[in-house]
């Protein structure tokens, strides 16, 4: 670990000032401190924001939710409103990490978490994300867990978050506060695909701080759920995952929100799957046909050739679980 200074911000202003001067925000610390130990992250200044008043879950309008950035994963998962309105969020959170980590890690930190690419986390390996221009060891290395969607020749690392997949599916908005005031960023625009600058991961400007993630009000209530496929039963990042939210009325699918995890450089929204579902009647055949589009554009690597097919099956299974039949 490299030496650093640490200060706890007493209020928003103090935090933003420190952030503007180059301080790194730390809340639960479950990602940043790990990476500091591996010297992947070498911040000079840590700004502890954990006492800022960003710990509320608020219902906004008809079925909207605003989850404060400092709400712990465990708190968000257990929140009655989250459970009732968006089980997909609770499930994604509860299938993440371990109980200990969920008690520390925050919602803001969760969507900021960095990739699990082992070459990124090994400072002796080439990694454009960690050290721009050094190359990508994963591209032709061991890449079983890596992305098949949204990749570039510069980076094939997966975004590891589960709940971010639910947020992507539900078209959430990220609220940020910075030196220039408040901004709202559509979730689809918040996390960046690597392109030629994999070191740039979020659409945050200098010193900006996430204050909340908002799930927009949906006119029609959604039935939702999250499926995570992984080698072991607990405490592992997804090989593939699917967040699905549907509204079915009169036997017809009126709303469909679908996104996939474990496969993209960012949580992967699946508009082609959604389009295939809207206006149709639920059936096993429909789920299979819609899921056929889940891996459109996939570029598998040496060790993750199984992922496109597994992704389709994951999406199909979760459509069936949420949408019924069989």
């Amino acid at each position: 670990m490299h030496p650093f200074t640490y200060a706890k911000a007493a209020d928003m202003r103090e935090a933003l000032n420190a952030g503007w001067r180059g301080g790194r925000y730390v809340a639960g610390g479950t990602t940043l401190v790990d990476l500091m130990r591996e010297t992947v992250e070498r911040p000079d200044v840590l700004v502890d924001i954990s006492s800022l008043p960003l710990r509320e879950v608020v219902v906004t309008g008809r079925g909207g939710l605003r989850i404060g950035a400092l709400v712990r994963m465990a708190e968000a998962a257990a929140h009655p409103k989250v459970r009732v309105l968006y089980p997909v969020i609770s499930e994604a959170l509860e299938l993440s990490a371990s109980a200990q980590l969920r008690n520390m890690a925050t919602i803001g930190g969760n969507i900021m978490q960095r990739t699990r690419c082992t070459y990124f986390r090994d400072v002796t390996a080439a990694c454009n994300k960690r050290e721009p221009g050094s190359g990508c060891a994963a591209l032709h290395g061991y890449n079983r867990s890596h992305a098949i969607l949204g990749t570039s020749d510069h980076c094939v690392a997966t975004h590891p978050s589960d709940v971010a997949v639910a947020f992507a599916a539900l078209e959430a908005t990220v609220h940020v506060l910075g030196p220039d005031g408040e901004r709202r960023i559509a979730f689809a625009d918040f996390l960046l695909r690597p392109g030629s600058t994999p070191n740039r991961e979020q659409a945050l400007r200098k010193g900006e701080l996430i204050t909340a993630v908002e799930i927009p009000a949906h006119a029609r209530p959604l039935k939702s759920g999250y499926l995570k496929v992984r080698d072991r039963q607990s405490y592992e990042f997804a090989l593939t995952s699917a967040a699905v939210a549907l509204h079915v009325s009169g036997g017809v699918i009126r709303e469909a929100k679908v996104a996939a995890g474990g496969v993209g450089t960012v949580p992967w929204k699946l508009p082609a799957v959604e389009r295939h579902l809207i206006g149709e009647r639920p059936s096993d055949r429909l789920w299979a046909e819609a899921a056929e589009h889940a891996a459109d554009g996939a570029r598998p690597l040496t060790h993750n050739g199984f992922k496109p097919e597994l992704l389709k099956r994951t999406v199909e299974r979760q459509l069936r679980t949420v949408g019924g039949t069989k």
Partner: protein
Amino acid sequence: MSQPQAAVGAAVPRVDARLRVTGGAKYAADNSPDGVVHAVIVESSIGRGRITGIDTRAAEARPGVLKVISHLNAPKLPPVEGRFPPGKPLRAFQDDRVQFFGQPVAVAVATTLETAQHAASLVKVSYDAETSSTDISDADAAGGTQTYARGDADRALDSAPVRLDTTYRTARNHHNPMEPAGIVAQWDGDRLTVWEKTQYVQGTVFTLSGEFGIPPDHIRVISPFIGGAFGNAARAWVHSVIAAMAAREVKRPVKLVLTRRQMYFTVGYRPAYEYGLRLGADRGGRLTASTHDVRAESSRYETYSESVLVPGRMLYSTPNVRQAYDHVPLDVSTPWFMRGPGYASGAYPVESAMDELAHELGVDPIELRLRNEPSDDESSNLPFSTRRLRDCYRTGAREFGWHRRNPKPRSTRDGDWLIGMGMAAGVYDTMRSEAQASVRLDADGTALVQSATSDMGPGTATSMSQVAADALGLTMRQVTFRLGDSLMPPAPVHAGSQTMASVGSAVQDGCDKLRKQAIALAVNDKGSPLHGVDAADIVVRGGRLYAKGEPTRGETYQRLLARNDRTHLEVLGSYAGAPEPERFSLYAYSAIFAEVAVDARLGLVRVRRMLGVYDAARIVNPRLADSQAIGAMTGGIGQALLEHTVTDHRDGRIVNANLADYLVPTHADMPDLKAIFIDGQDYEADPIGVKGLGEVVIVGVAPAIANAVFNATGRRIRQLPITAEALL
């Protein structure tokens, strides 16, 4: 020798349980002698080549940094001989060669751990890298590491009515104990004291004595507690030499603890195997021949090999067997014993192939095994001391509900899950070695028993206390067993399931001697109520000696010693080890049953329940034995489904050197695990009648699971671990 058995056989809790769970147990790295400083290893980032430069300026400029040691400034150490494994052991900074990725190339020593860590990260090493070879399936073997033959297997195979020809592959596995390797080294002149995590305190003495060219009696190694090891603390590795070297260089006690990442580089692993197996049988399923062509990875500097061939030549009656084990020298660190060494890897192909044969012939897998049950050990021509494998099958089939298994694959469903049952046999050698234990009975009636053994998890102090308590006629509370100090009477390495048999027999011998000494004292003492009684008629219970037929006639150890002005009685117990040559074939056995659920669409395998039935002869403590079995089933689930050390063959880098990417089972992966121990003793094995337990319990777990996966899915995956991509 008619002492009542009160403690042995009872499910008493661990004597050190409270210490362990309350943080009271002092592990190696918990020791901080006055003036202790910290050492952090810098490891190579290439897989093979030469170090061309080491820039330590930035590191040494940091306040608090005492020294950075590398081959450029390390003291020259005397030459050493490799005993096991044969070869040239890895030395601490003696030249510029890099032999594998992660090899220690320097060590930073500083006054605080944080400073040492930071300094290590500032050391810049430059290399002249060479192409490394780390892929077992893409490298040439060095032949003839082990061979075995009886009959003419190749010819017999040609004429066998039923034949099977398969290759099984197993991944490299790392031990991953909770406690990382750690050592604190302190010099006093040319005398060295180390607190080290080790399964073999006297082995570390031997290694450090050779490395530093100092007499063994100048070295003391202390290791009272181990936080798990699974074999990887059964050798003094190079980091221990580095710590001692650093302590001598900076003239301060040095503490060195490997990081989790470093635990994948220099403390051994279960090697990857390619096991070519051919079976020949008649139509009735009786084996006529088998050939075993095995390749295993080893380092270039040492030739490691283990008993992977044994199950294939002694488990089943087979007139013709040919075996060849070739090691494949690679640019990797040396493999090492990992739980069930050799047997756990060898049972997988053998027991999978038996399942394949059973399926092929339409015979129940247990029935097939019974048809091939040998009457004696055909590999040694020795009679079995005890072999209750039939009992294991019978009890296991009954308790597991084997009759509910549909032999037709893919025939049992539970929603999206295919359900399957599988079984396998397991076996492990009953090793015994020379051991000693000192026994001291004090005037207060309590006893202290000591031996330089270790406890990596089985509960050595507890089981030894049980043996001692019964032999001395004391209660458990009146006995203390101490271990883990090289100054104690010698004990063999705490590995190979030999501790109970070896040290336990020495403890029993010592305690018997002491009890008899006390009895002799009493019967010859006119002041004793037992004066004149035949010594053979006296038993001791709860610390009181009394005449068998006349329980009221007796006295306590305390009174006896007090009256005779003795502060204590003390004897040395010993056990001579296995006879040379052995007169019997000595093995522990098991039958393992597994039920799995497979989501074939998603490639998921989940173990639903397992049952292990064991013939390990006498069980000293059923609670500890159960813990051994459950732990090993968990390890076996890992071996079967999860554990896989992955190497990037471009540069020999281990890419999953952490516990997020190297998967071991979580609690959710080990739901319903049950162990049954077949009643019995084996006094041909050793005086206390045990056959060893800690190793056999993992053997057979992986093939039982793999066979269950086949029964569930009809897919025979001949590679471990069985992962989603193999099943999709």
